[in-house]
């Protein structure tokens, strides 16, 4: 669906303050995939999301959406508008309308839909993020923080994007909030969006929810692949100063002590199962 070929991006290009953000990045998202993107602050993750959604134009390289090169278009956002939805970090800070429903309608309205169509799309988005009709006429400033974030995500979902990109959707949430958010994303992916890409700092979140992982380091792709493939390279990740899930570390330690485990183990349940089998088997 989205394909980045040899993308480079430099902030303040051709000035003394030039800062390279992306170097020769090749990355593609296919239909049905859920990608987790990890890396340090300043590794280029956020720039990557903005390039994928057409907000930034790469300095060189191609961005293909369904095979069409959007970098050739004058206004990349206009071409991608609605097809790639981007939810920023702390999206609740962008709410501005007097009612929840009006705020969610903002995106579809900008795309030129009629009021009825906007309302319909907004209501569908509200259902997908798990907000019932009673929220429609509330002010987005008098609901709780978690609900605000849902409203903000609904504001992007209402544009019916094929690909939904989220920059650190779980920032500031407690464990229950985080679980609910991922449950909601699963729901959105099942019913509306074909693919989801989310940026995260937490390896545990990525291990739990993504099926593919892209690891960014210093503006370059460090490694990518399925969750198992990536976490197998724990040495590479740790060298880049990234954590691996605690369970993976536990198994790695046991391997060091001479015990053998055949596959990559990411969850506590799998680990307990594997250790138990070794003890009994």
């Amino acid at each position, binding site marked *: 669906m989205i394909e980045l070929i040899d993308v480079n991006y430099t902030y303040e290009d051709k000035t003394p303050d030039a800062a390279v953000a992306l170097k020769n990045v090749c990355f593609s998202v296919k239909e049905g995939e859920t990608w987790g993107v990890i890396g340090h602050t300043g590794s280029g993750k956020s720039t990557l999301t903005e390039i994928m959604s057409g*907000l930034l134009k790469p300095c060189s390289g191609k961005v293909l959406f369904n095979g069409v090169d959007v970098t050739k278009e004058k206004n990349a956002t206009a071409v991608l508008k609605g097809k790639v939805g981007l939810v920023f970090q702390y999206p609740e800070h*962008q709410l501005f309308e007097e009612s929840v429903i009006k705020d969610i309608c903002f*995106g579809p309205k900008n795309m030129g839909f009629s009021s009825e169509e906007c309302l319909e799309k907004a209501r569908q988005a509200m259902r997908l993020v798990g907000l019932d009709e009673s929220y429609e006429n509330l002010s987005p400033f008098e609901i709780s923080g978690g609900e605000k974030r849902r409203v903000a995500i609904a*504001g992007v979902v209402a544009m019916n994007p094929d690909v939904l990109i989220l920059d650190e959707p779980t920032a500031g949430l407690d464990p229950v909030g985080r679980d609910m958010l991922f449950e909601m994303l699963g729901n959105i992916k099942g019913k509306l969006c074909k693919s989801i890409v989310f940026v995260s700092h937490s390896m545990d979140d990525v291990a739990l929810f993504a099926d593919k992982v892209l690891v960014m380091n210093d503006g370059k792709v460090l490694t990518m692949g399925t969750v198992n493939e990536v976490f197998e390279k724990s040495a590479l990740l740790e060298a880049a100063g990234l954590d691996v899930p605690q369970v993976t570390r536990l198994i790695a330690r046991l391997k060091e002590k001479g015990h053998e485990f055949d596959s990559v183990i990411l969850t506590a349940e799998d680990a307990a199962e594997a250790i138990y089998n070794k003890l009994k088997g």
Partner: protein
Amino acid sequence: MLRDITIGQYYNTKSSLHSLDPRCKLIGLLVMMVLIFVAHSVFEYAFVAIITIALALLSKVPAMYILKGMKPVWLIVAFTAVINIFMGGGEEVIFTWWIFTATKESVLLALSMMLRVVLLVMVSTLLTLTTSPTVLTSGLEKLLKPLEKIKFPSHEVAMMMSIALRFIPTLGEEAEKIMKAQAARGNDIESGGIMKKISGMIPLFVPLFISAFRRADELAMAMECRCYAGGCHRTSFRKLEYKKNDIVAFLLMVTACLVIVIYRMVGF
């Protein structure tokens, strides 16, 4: 980018102008303003212009940098010049165009007004170029201190200025983020007519104001937790002392004023 906004564009280098006490420089600015306003003979204009150029040289700030800082005022300068040329009145007509007439007097008036504005802006730019905003704020606070006797809130004014300086880059960064987020929702402030542009600003300003208020709230609490209770009994991290250079500067200011006064009295 918005986060690069720096108020007054402090130019960090070492020069005798940089090392002066901010109070001395503020008073110097005041003196220069008065001199520029009272000037109205060729000698007087030349005198203040030479002082200004000398100050610019003393500051060790590259000339291009000073001129760049004055960019926004060129339009005002040109505008005042045009108004003065055609509205000045006077006898000796130089040329007439449609209903406008330019006379020798009006052209001279326009020239002198232009010179005044340029010199004024240049002197004040020199102050902000050679004094960091924080130092300037504390200088202003000390200078206004005596006004507290007539209930002027000098500490509060300085505090407000300093907090504004602290938060302008932060809010700039935030504005940029919100702008991007709304652009991702299809908000378009580049194209369309004025009305469309204005309505496109609402999704930017509402969240920005809400965030500014939230920040103000939290900051007030954080300040209270650090025992802030206004200006009384406060000591200062920054000690301002007049040094030898400042005394020399004050003497020069007095001399400059005397030159003008004597010139007027004797009337060469």
